[in-house]
């Protein structure tokens, strides 16, 4: 808990979730993917460019809500090293790494303007996630177009 003191420019939370080790600069995108703060009653605080063991990182703290790993996994698309820490009674009671899902729905918009998923049809975008190469690729389930760069720019 060494970095708590320095980070406690933000109030400690009694119960909730801390998403730690978010790629620096991506915290706002993480909130967008999770639909926060709209989907939460409690205080949501963010730290941008905080000093971590492995360089700069962002941190998101959500009071009074325990996020499930599955609902957070999709943030792995833009923050693959993030950890999900469940806080109860001021202490970390559970810690999980996010996992890159093999399929994502309704998170990213297809970059092909002529793709059927970019028309007014009652469907959400779907992508197959390819992690074979070192850089992550999303292949549109409808038109096959591949997004391999700047995924954060194509969030729905």
């Amino acid at each position: 808990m060494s970095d708590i003191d320095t980070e406690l420019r933000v109030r400690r939370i009694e119960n909730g979730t801390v998403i730690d080790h978010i790629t620096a600069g991506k915290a706002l995108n993480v909130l967008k993917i999770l639909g926060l703060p709209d989907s939460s009653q409690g205080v949501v605080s963010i730290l941008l460019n905080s000093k971590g063991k492995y360089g700069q990182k962002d941190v998101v703290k959500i009071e009074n809500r325990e996020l499930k790993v599955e609902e957070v996994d999709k943030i792995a698309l833009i923050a693959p090293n993030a950890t999900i820490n469940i806080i109860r009674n001021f202490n970390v009671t559970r810690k999980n790494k996010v996992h890159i899902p093999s399929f994502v729905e309704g998170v990213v918009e297809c970059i092909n303007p002529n793709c059927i998923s970019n028309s007014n049809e009652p469907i959400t975008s779907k992508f197959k996630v390819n992690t074979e190469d070192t850089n992550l690729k999303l292949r549109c389930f409808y038109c096959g177009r591949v997004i391999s760069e700047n995924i954060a720019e194509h969030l729905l």
Partner: protein
Amino acid sequence: MKFKDHHIISTRNFSREMIDHILAAAEKMETIANGEQRSDLLAGKVLAVLFFEPSTRTRMSFETAMLRLGGDVLNLGSVDASSISKGETLADTIRVVDGYADAIVLRHPREGAAQLASEFSRVPVLNAGDGAGHHPTQTLLDLYTIKRESHLDGLKIALAGDLKYGRTVHSLCYALSLYGAQITLISPNELRMPEEIISDIIARGAKIIEVDSIDDAINDVDVLYMTRIQKERFPDAAEYQKVANKLKITMETLKDVKHELKIMHPLPRVNEIDTKVDDTPHACYFKQAFYGVPVRMALLGLVLGAIE
């Protein structure tokens, strides 16, 4: 092999066994397709033909395939007159039409449209072209033509023309890679086949040779597949003319070719094949257009469960 109730969206993930199975079924349909024999294999079945974009050939070929098998055809008619122009979604159209028909053939200007249709339809959907996406029946009829007029095993084929944007050629290459074909690519530099596709098809088993003129390849191949080069792809008319003249088949081009060489073209052609070539035994494009009928008959029979 079971195709009953399957949607035919793309051949991209078809195995060689699946393709061989469809081609074998098509062969049995040929005498019905050419009118020698009558059939009522699909009597009582209705095919809905939804074309949101003009295409006379593919549509007529599907319609005749259904009619030759004793089935009936329901046509969307003109898009202007239908509720689509009032802004109905494709999803809604499909959910209505699947109540009127046993299978749906769809041509749509947007990529992924057939996939979407298959998610909403209770009857099999056959993709007849989705924008720049897939056109599986074209690929299958191309393969069928090669099988009937040449041979799929140990094939040496050259593809000429627009290899960058031409979806027909891409899908054909993916399928031919399953047969270990030797594929020679002939195109102007501006219209080369995308690198990802080339490396994909090599990984799947094809051998690739790239050249930039027809003369460099034609004497060695069993099949020459010509495609049209679109004027719009070039900055000016002069540039287009230069390229178009280089990728043209005349009697002169055919001087030293193999006796068995077959020339294919998805049609319509503009002037990439001189009409004098039509009368040579090499010309095979009109036959190719006819082969669309038995192939589509086979697919309809398979997805409707009338044959296995």
